[in-house]
């Protein structure tokens, strides 16, 4: 069901852990829906010098978190912002259709973490896409 790349990132997750004095933290997902992703960023001179993740979720959610952190490490905030869920899924050599929302979660987690950093710096947050991840308000988990 999963590509070798997904299994590799699931079995050997990159950048798993916590940055205790993170400059920006983003959390997305919902335990009811079975996935929560938390992204920690260290930022120096507009560059992501370190990134870590914690994830509660399926194999695809863990692999998407791991791959997303790899894709943004060492990048400028602008470059990191542009990393799309498609880019995450492609880097993982594809995700099953039902699991695409895991890559969406990764993209949203990065955006949340970057905006958390910007707000802490007194900068206006960038505009996040309308939440297209499964809803939190109505208690359902549809994508």
């Amino acid at each position, binding site marked *: 069901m999963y590509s070798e790349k997904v299994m590799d990132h699931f079995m050997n997750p990159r950048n798993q852990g916590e940055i205790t004095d993170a400059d920006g933290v983003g959390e997305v997902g919902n335990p*009811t829906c079975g996935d929560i*992703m938390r992204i920690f960023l260290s930022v120096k001179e507009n560059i992501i010098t370190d990134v870590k993740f914690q*994830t509660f*979720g399926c194999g695809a959610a863990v692999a998407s978190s791991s791959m997303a952190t790899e894709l943004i490490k060492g990048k400028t905030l602008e470059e990191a912002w542009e990393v799309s869920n498609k880019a995450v899924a492609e880097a993982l050599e594809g995700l099953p259709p039902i699991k695409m929302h895991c890559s969406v979660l990764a993209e949203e987690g990065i955006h949340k973490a970057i905006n958390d950093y910007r707000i802490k710096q007194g900068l206006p947050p960038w505009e996040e896409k309308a939440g297209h991840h499964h809803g939190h308000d109505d208690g359902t988990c549809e994508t």
Partner: protein
Amino acid sequence: MANQKSVYMDHSATTATDPEVVQAMIPWFSNQYGNPSSLYKLARESKTAIENARSKVATAIGAKPEEIFFTSGGTESDNWALIGTAFALRKKGNHIITSGIEHHAIQHTCEYLEKQGFSVTYLPVDESGKIRTADLKSAITDGTILVSVMFANNEIGTIQPVKEIGKICREKGILFHTDAVQAIGNIPIDVGDLNIDLLSLSSHKFYGPKGTGALFIRKGVRIDNYIHGGGQERRKRAGTENVPGIVGLGTAIEKVTRNLEDNSNRIRVLRDRLLDRILSEIPHTRLNGHRTDRLAGNINVSFEFIEGESLLLLLDHAGIAASTGSACSSGSLEPSHVLLAIGLRAEIAHGSLRLTLGRENTEEDNEYVFAELKKAVERLRAMSPLYADYLKKRSRHV
């Protein structure tokens, strides 16, 4: 990894066909290929083989041979039992009662019948997964034509109060169907003693081949045909019989009921050892289902802070076959309806694991599964933000 250990603990999904069963089936694929509906000797031998198997199934559940009808498996038996009786009794009433934790073969068939104008009551279950007979009694109306409650649940293993249900239905003159797919071979069943009118069973759950099952239909029960065509199965279920499969089913059910109590007891002891260890040595773990009124081989536990599919992947990597009620493994986004029905919060349902032991499992398997499971749970908790939050909260309170 050539010499990797592998342990199969998913016997509620399916079982390996018993080698004796395979041996019994083989002639009916090759030399003994006659169509049972034909006239000549070769055909008559096939017919005899089917009737022998029918007697074995009847004996196993306390029925008469003419009350046993072979099908393609549990799903067909369930569809036939519900749709066949509902339409046959439509003039008498249009109300059906079932439980909220049935297998999809019942649940989705009930939903279909609702679209056809029938009204269905889904009885709630208590936290152990049992229906309350008081709920059943008060759900019965003048228009109730059928009650269908599973014998034992496929996910949490809970055994229903079948005898009481049968008694209530008999007193009220309502048909009682039970999906006994998980129970056959695990629990002694006598359809007379239990007042069961229709019973579904599936061969591959008790070391028989896949693609074969049966429906017990008590003599006198009115039921429409479901598969239409030729005159097989006394004109009730059309289609050339799966002779090797039926022979396999007969051989398997005979063997599994012969040693039923001994096998069940051995598996129960093994299951309890593994279950007790999991509950006592892996913190933040809960048992789902009834502690004692459950299938002998069934373990269903939830591990807080982690998700079931990722747990299955780690176990699979260690060569262990198991199952989960997490949505993330099922192709839908909602967790198991059974786990939600017993009152689990969705996030706890997502962290569920089902291990179903069978007759080939050993104490050594237990040791291996426990060790790998403990490692896997710790590993996933180490990456879980929910567990990180829990640890922080705890250290603040110390």
